[in-house]
């Protein structure tokens, strides 16, 4: 069991460090910390102009959504970049559990997502003047962590598709755009058609954003718990789906000898 946790933890950290082979701190800060703040401001001002909802709705919603950026792309990169850099074969030759290897890759990205969400929430609140009840902060942090993990597993599910399809980055880009629309982060759920709300229920972020809004409104953990539990369930579902798809597509790519096909 210790070896398994070591594989998940240490493996994930080493893979994460490898990311800085091509990225830089400036790119990290610009893309992941500054970008989401402008996204938050864009929707907050649009919401103000249209009178759709107050600033709190947009600050909290977009802060939770900010976690998705690194988690979805990170989860996708965890698999797709192995192929791009020619190391996928080595990973799949490993005698250890590939499911554990790839699930471990998600953890640092989820940590990143949490950092981004906290930073976006803090800066957004300071810029637009949102006050939060201090006793809600621990539960809010837990909510953001659950959202990040849930998004990470969603990203890994998309990454698993990278074992089967070449243009997985199109899927990631479109998925991130769809999260903007379907999770009710920027449009109140009541304003969306029924089918969009239904799809949103199965996506990460939707329930976490609802839970975070309850917490920031001062309604307490009890009011947020059902939505938080739903987000945990969604995250667990995607973890399971990712593990299944990884096994399935790995077996298929071995059978078709298409592992390193770009």
């Amino acid at each position: 069991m210790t070896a398994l946790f070591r594989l998940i933890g240490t493996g994930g950290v080493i893979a994460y460090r490898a990311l800085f082979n091509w990225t830089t701190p400036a790119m990290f800060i610009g893309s992941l910390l500054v970008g989401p703040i402008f996204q938050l401001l864009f929707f907050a001002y649009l919401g103000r102009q249209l009178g759709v909802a107050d600033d709190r709705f947009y600050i909290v919603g977009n802060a939770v959504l900010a976690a998705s950026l690194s988690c979805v792309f990170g989860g996708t990169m965890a698999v797709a970049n192995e192929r791009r850099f020619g190391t996928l074969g080595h990973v799949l030759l490993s005698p250890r559990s590939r499911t554990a290897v790839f699930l471990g890759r998600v953890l640092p990205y989820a940590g990143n997502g949490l950092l981004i969400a906290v930073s976006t929430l803090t800066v957004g609140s300071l810029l637009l003047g949102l006050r939060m009840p201090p006793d809600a902060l621990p539960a809010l942090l837990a909510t953001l962590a659950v959202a990040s993990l849930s998004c990470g597993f969603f990203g890994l599910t998309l990454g698993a598709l990278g074992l089967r399809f070449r243009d997985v980055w199109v899927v990631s880009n479109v998925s991130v755009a769809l999260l903007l629309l379907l999770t009710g982060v920027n449009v109140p759920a009541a304003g969306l058609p029924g089918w969009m709300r239904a799809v949103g229920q199965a996506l990460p972020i939707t329930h976490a954003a609802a839970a975070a809004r309850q917490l920031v409104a001062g309604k307490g953990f009890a009011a947020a718990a059902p939505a938080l539990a739903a987000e945990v369930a969604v995250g667990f579902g995607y973890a399971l789906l990712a593990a299944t798809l990884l096994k399935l597509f790995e077996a298929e790519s071995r059978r078709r000898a298409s592992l390193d096909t770009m």
Partner: protein
Amino acid sequence: MKLLRMIGVGALLHTKQLSRSPFEIATALIVPVVQATLAVYLFRAGGEPGRLLEAAVGAGLMGVWSSVLFGSGGAIQNQRWQGTLEMIMLAPRPPALMILPITLATAVTGTYAMLATLLWGRLLYGVPLDFAHPLLFLLAVPGCVLGLGMFGLLLAATFVLMRNANALTNTLEYPIWLVSGMLVPLTVLPGWTGPIAAALPTTWGARAVHEAASGGPVWPSLGICLAISLGCLITGALMMTYVERRARAAATLALA
């Protein structure tokens, strides 16, 4: 005339090349449509169903800017990765004239977004395409595209000088959407954003297109957009010449 022909043929070639990329096309068509859907539901939720054409046009303009930002910002790097940068720089023409067709092509590819959001709005949501000035709209969009393409050359020249240009590219998408009034009216933004907005060709280009769609004097906005863009083109060309000479002298043209 030869110069215009070269720029035209070059822009056509690069537009064709970009149009063969499934990633470019999917991103240019699907993402703006998702954003336009979001805008429509936001405008409806805000009790502004009469402004849906504005939402569709705004989302299209956002798509044009994204295409220019990522395409022009990475124009030099993309040529380097393709192994064609040296051949482009070897051509007996100023480097800016070789890169301008690429940045124009990224703006032209961006118009796919405008077409997609307008068609999507008409077909799925029944948004009436009642342009206040239909003919001027057909002029304002290419004018805005031309302006953004020239602005793209300045981006390409600036970004090639910066080691961490990607960081800036990823960060500049939302601020320009916001400050240029593509979807959010400038009147709701803090006053200090006014001078920044006034200096950007994106603001005037977006304004010209919105005025052609919803009513207003199109020509002054379009003229200012093209004048600022021409300034960007000249500055970008000077920077490009400087960068090319420096890269030749240091033998770093092919190095990232």
